[in-house]
């Protein structure tokens, strides 16, 4: 029951992730929201699947994927933001 609830909750996160990509003007804001919301959606779905599969070999693999993406998600977003910043995208546009 809880896993179904979590799956429905993850729908909202996925939708907001997609909306977040198209709505923001500033490139960094887009980068921030999309990576953050996407990681949260990932956590919700994987947690729902862990609850659904109970204790089996699937759960061990799911926990492995969860830990791995939790570590590398923010790192990949950081790497993109760093290369964007160093190559000269101004942090705050003047028009706002």
């Amino acid at each position, binding site marked *: 029951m809880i896993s179904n609830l979590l799956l429905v909750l993850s729908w909202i996160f996925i*939708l907001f*992730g997609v909306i977040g990509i198209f709505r923001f003007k500033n490139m960094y804001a887009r980068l921030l929201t999309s990576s953050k919301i*996407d990681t949260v959606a990932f956590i919700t*779905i*994987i947690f729902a699947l862990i609850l659904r599969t109970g204790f089996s070999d699937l759960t061990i693999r799911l926990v492995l*994927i969860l830990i*791995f993406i939790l570590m*590398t998600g923010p790192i990949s977003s950081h*790497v993109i933001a760093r290369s964007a910043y160093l*190559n000269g995208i101004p942090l705050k546009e003047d028009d706002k």
Partner: protein
Amino acid sequence: MLIRATMGLLILAMIAVLVKMLKGPTIWDRLMSLNLFSVKITLLISLYGVYTDNSMLLDVAISYAVIGFLTITLLSRFILRGGRQK
């Protein structure tokens, strides 16, 4: 049934990310959408693996997560170095 609906929504989100990849003004938007796309593919594979109770698919999802992460870091280092004019 819910897993099928989640997979459908994920596919729509992936199509939206692809559209953003085409439309994105800067290279880093494309990199960001590539990053999102690979995370979503990992999600889709693990969802399908749990849906069909096939544990080998989850191994595929783990390896794809590793490859996706490496792609992003290497591509952004390539762009940081200003491409291949050396």
